[in-house]
Each structure stands twice: as structure tokens, then as C-alpha cells.
């Protein structure tokens, strides 16, 4: 079974990486690739600009779950709304729920309690996916959100702020300080989910440049230290295309007259240097996760580019499988 087929069997796939590496494009492409594998997929983003919508060719929806093709949906999530929703479900008297939501204690708690926003982001995907699956044992709010489609996988384009590990470690942190009640139960449930690679997959996105490579390696170390787990997948995005090996090599003197070819060759060489450094470090240790490569493509952001990137993910996954790295 290839890496994409394995990810398609997870409940939640968290796509993480620093800002500017193309995390959103990879999340959208991964959503398309998993939907192509027959799974019902929701791609969730946490950004008012709704870039995932753009990448999937869907108009901004302001928070609603909207269809983005066969077996594919997209949603922009506001963490505060998720927390408020949980309060409303729990405090069934609307007047009282309003009092609680308006109270200084609740507002300060929601804004300042460590890890709560992150808990809401992870918990939302989890709740949605639970819908209709756990009829016998739901306790109301854990059962999910009415009106949502039945889902197999939720792909989460994680917020770029802070370390990706903060999001995944949040349930543990919250579980430590809140022992009971809906938030406490959700935290405990999500802490189990985050630690279980069979249920939650982590895809790290990076670029073959110095800083992103450092950050990807740091992320892997932090995942091992705090959650005792490894990422399932590393995607190296934004590569300049390889220079054709069979083409006659141009001379240095020639390059000076052909600045475009020179720039291509040298940026590609920089990519290859950093990629080699990344792979050498990544493949140390037991059972290293597969590494997929994505090129820069000459196309504007939109559905066509996302479909093309999904195709390149699939091609790279097939190549990784043949090389024995899947």
C-alpha cells in the first residue's frame, strides 16, 4: 500500500509547516488526491482569507462546509465559534448560554487558556468525522455537527503561527489542567487521537532551502520528544525542475550569455544541495517516513494547479514506492 493510500485511511491528516512553504497548496492537492482514492474528504483551513477555497476553485464560503467536487468539501474554521458551539450544546438553555458566553470569565478563559484554540481546531475535524458513526455511544456534542456530510478523512491545513507541534500537543496540555467536563473529555480523547499514527497522520511541508529544511528537522525532533511519534509524510514543495541530464552541458561562458539557464541551473543546484542534506538527516533512525517532491509549476493558483499538483504527488508517491521509501 502506497503512502497516499495509507493516509486515506486516517481520520485526520494534519498538514503542517512554516509560513511561505506552500502548505495550503499541498493541503488542497492532498485533499484532491485522497478523494481520488474513493474517500470522502473535507479540507479545513483556519484563515479568513480562505486560500484553500481559491486553490480548489470554490468561492469563499465564510465558514460553511461547501462542496468542491466529488467526495470533496472545504470549510474555513473559526476556532472561537467551535468553542461557543460546544458551550451552547452543553448549556441547553439559550438565555443561560448567552450569559455564560458573555461572561468575563468565559471570555478570558477562551482567549487566554493555553491550548484551547488549538483544541477547538483539532476537535472540530474529529467531531465532524464522528457524525453518524457513533450513534450508540455519543453523548450529544461529541457526536458532531448537524448538517455536515458524512466524512472519511479530514485534511487540516494547520495555522502557520507557531510550531506545528503546539497544535498537536495542545490536547495533552489542556487535559493536564482540565480534568472533567466537555473540554476535559474532548482533550483526553484528542490526546489519544494525536498520539495514534493509525488514526491521525502528520504531513510536514517544507522547501529545499536552508531555513525550511532546519524547521522540518526541528519539527520531527519535537514530535518525537513531545508526542513520541513521527510524521507520516514529508513533502518538499516548490522545487525548480531538474536540469535534463541528457542535454549537452552548457559551458560557463555560455551561461553568462544565457542568464535564465544559469539561474535555473544554480537554483536547482541549491535545491539539490538542501534536499540531499534534508534526506540524509531524515532517513536516519528507524522507519523514516516517505519524502515526496513537488515542482513549481507555471500556473496561477486555482483548481487546475491543484489538480496538477495532486497528479505530481501521486507520481512522486509511485516513484518513492518503487525506490522502497514508501
Amino acid at each position: 500500500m502506497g503512502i497516499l493510500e495509507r493516509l486515506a485511511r486516517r481520520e485526520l491528516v494534519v498538514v503542517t509547516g512554516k509560513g511561505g512553504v506552500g502548505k495550503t497548496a499541498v493541503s488542497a492537492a492532498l485533499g484532491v488526491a485522497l478523494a481520488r482514492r474513493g474517500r470522502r474528504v473535507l479540507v479545513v483551513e483556519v484563515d479568513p482569507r480562505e486560500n484553500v477555497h481559491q486553490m480548489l476553485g470554490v468561492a469563499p464560503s465564510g465558514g460553511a462546509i461547501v462542496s468542491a467536487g466529488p467526495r470533496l468539501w472545504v470549510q474555513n474554521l473559526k476556532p472561537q465559534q467551535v468553542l461557543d458551539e460546544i458551550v451552547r450544546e452543553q448549556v441547553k438553555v439559550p438565555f443561560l448560554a448567552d450569559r455564560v458566553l458573555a461572561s468575563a470569565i468565559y471570555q478570558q478563559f477562551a482567549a487566554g487558556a493555553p491550548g484551547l484554540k488549538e483544541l477547538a481546531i483539532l476537535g472540530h475535524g474529529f467531531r465532524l468525522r464522528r457524525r453518524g458513526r457513533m450513534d450508540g455511544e455519543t453523548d450529544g456534542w461529541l457526536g458532531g455537527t448537524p448538517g455536515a456530510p458524512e466524512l472519511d478523512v479530514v485534511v487540516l491545513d494547520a495555522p502557520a503561527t507557531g510550531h506545528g507541534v503546539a497544535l498537536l500537543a495542545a490536547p495533552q496540555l489542556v487535559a493536564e489542567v482540565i480534568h472533567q467536563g466537555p473540554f476535559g473529555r474532548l482533550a483526553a480523547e484528542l490526546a489519544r487521537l494525536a498520539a495514534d499514527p493509525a488514526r491521525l497522520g502528520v504531513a510536514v511541508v517544507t522547501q529545499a532551502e536552508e531555513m525550511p529544511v532546519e524547521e522540518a528537522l526541528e519539527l520531527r525532533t519535537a514530535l518525537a520528544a513531545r508526542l513520541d511519534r513521527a510524521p507520516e509524510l514529508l513533502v518538499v514543495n516548490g522545487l525548480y525542475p531538474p536540469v535534463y541530464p541528457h542535454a549537452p552541458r552548457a559551458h560557463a561562458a555560455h551561461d553568462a550569455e544565457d542568464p535564465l539557464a544559469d539561474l535555473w541551473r544554480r537554483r536547482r543546484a541549491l535545491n539539490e544541495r538542501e534536499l540531499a542534506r534534508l534526506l540524509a538527516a531524515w532517513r536516519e533512525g528507524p522507519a523514516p517516513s516517505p519524502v515526496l517532491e513537488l515542482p513549481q509549476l507555471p500556473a496561477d493558483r486555482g483548481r487546475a494547479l491543484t489538480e496538477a499538483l495532486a497528479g505530481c504527488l501521486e507520481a512522486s508517491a509511485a516513484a518513492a514506492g518503487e525506490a522502497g521509501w514508501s
Partner: protein
Amino acid sequence: MELISARHPLTIFVGSGGVGKTTLAAAAGVLAARSGRGTLVMTFDPSLRLKDALGVGEEAREREVPVDLTSLGLGLGAERGRLDASLLDARRTFDRLVERYAPDADSRQRILGNRFYQHLSGSLGGILEYMAVERLFEVAAAGRYDQVILDTPPTRQALDFLEAPRRIVGFLDSGALKLALKPWFDAEGRLQATARWGGLGRRAERFLDEVVGLDLLRDMAEFFQAFAPLYAGFRERAAAVEALLAAERTLFVLVSGPGEERIPDTLFFARRLEQAGYRLGPIVVNRVHPRNDPRDTAAGAITPAAATDPCRPDGRELLRWLGERDHRGLRSLADLLPGRPLVSLPLLAEEPTDLPALAALGEDLERRLAAL
């Protein structure tokens, strides 16, 4: 337009993550030092190679470290033309503040040891950003430098940085603090706020107890109570920091990535800076792909052999497309921000990671600004 001038002894580099702010801030620092100004560059999270280039290690988290400019023909420790560098660490700066404003050792320990405080730096949006400005303020107040250049943390949402001082004041002013100043829990161990609500209040209290967890509430209450004596000093400081950002002598340099998809971020940043009354200097669009080089006729140097594979585009065609895209982006940005000094810096074949390369980058930027 000048990048470095005596009129603006404080320069703040802002922009989204991954656009090359840190490198440009370092290049501006080298430029200022070479022009004879005693300069400090304060950076966030520089790459290993940039740290090597500046010759700074972990000790730069504690203090300003001199940069050896002898490779540029400037002596180490010279009075004029000196460059220092420091690394910003939000947590340490916050700890230092607590230590300064705490009235006694006991209250200091109560804050530093509080569980809520220990998680605060990670959870309160903007605290990292605030600490960057706070540190700038410390350095500016000390007056040891002619020129201070501040790199800012990578914030995708520009608001975090600009609103940081106001947000901190708002946080300290908020209801929770006021509640904390009274006892949170009455004699029967009931939350004060809900005791007033009668029967409904008891339900709400049970809910808050369950949902929020009284342990966490107690941690938070304790933190705010312990923080109360520091509050006046802290609040005053945040107001002074905000005034410094808006002062005549502070200039913002906005760095953007190339390409049309970056425009909304850059535009948003520029408008926010203006609205806040800050002085926006040049807008630098970094790593722009070259476009339509007239010499670009040497077809055949690299032949598109595998053009049928959509995942292996021809590099020249890709670069041409990127060149067009980036210049489209530049034109739109110029239209959207009329009258603003806008310069672009080309994508280099190698990232500048040593002092001569940083010096060359700073000169290039200055030359392009002068040509405006």
C-alpha cells in the same frame, strides 16, 4: 529615498514569514555600519548560516554581541562603523520585565512559577511580537547606538505585530484582571460572578466549574493577583512602546514576496501601518524573478527533452512564467499603492549568507532606492 538616515535612527522590518526579512535587516545593518554609524541589528530566529555570517551564537540571546567586520575592511570594536547583533527571545524578555517590576522576591517567584504564566507566552497571540518591540524600547532608551534595526517575528497576520502593545494593555485591562483584584471565590467557595445570578447562576457556576476546570481558573486568578502590583508599570510601558512605534524617528520597511498572491498581505500590512499612524518607508518586493532578458535568445543551451511530463516543466519556461507573474504583481502593487516608494530586488542564484554578500545586498537595495 534613503534606507538609512539620521532622521530615522530606528528601522523596523516587517512582512509575512519566509520573505527574507531577516536577511534584509542584516544587510541594512551592515550598510549602516559601513556608513559610519554605530549600529545594532536585533533579529528573530536567523538561519544558522546567517548567525555564522554575523558570528553570533547563543550568547546573543543575553546581550549585544559585536560583529567582526574586518572582512569588509572595518576593524572590530571601532567606535565608528561598529555593528552589534542580538537575538530576541520573547520568554527571557518577559521574565526580565517581571523581575524589574515585581515589588519583591516573593511576588516575582509567584508569577514566574505560575502554571498559567508558563503557558502564556505560547498562547496569548502577539506576546512574541510585543516582546520584540519591548526589547527595542529598552535598547532605544539606553541610547548606545546611532542606528537600531529590528527584524520582526514571522507573522502571517500582520495585525499581531502592530496591535501587540494595545492587545497587551487590553488583556491587562480586561474583566478577568478586574475580577482578580476582588477575590474570585466567596466564603462558600463559590465564584463571585455567578453567585449574583441566583439559581441560574448556580447552574452556570457548575458549568464553568466543569467546562473551565477550577484548577485552571485558580491558576489564572492567582496569576492576575500576583501580576496586579506590576500592572501600572507594565501598562505605562506598553503605552510608551506604542508611542515609540508612532514616533517621527521610527521608520517601517515593508518586505514582500513576489507574485500576485502576495499582494493582499502586503496591501493589508501597508494600510494597517498607515491607519495606526506609523511611518511607512520603502516597500521592498524581494526575490523577484527576472523578466524578458533581451539576451535571452540562446535557445538550445538546455533542450526541453521531457516536456511531456507535466511534473517536470522546462526550467526556462517556468522562469519566464515566474518573471511575468512577479512583474504583474509589481505593477498591481504599484497601482494599488500610488506614490509609495516601491523597489524590487531580484532573485539571486545563491542566498546571501556571508558578510560580503550581505554588504552587496544592502548596497543594491540602497542604489535602487536612490534611483526612485
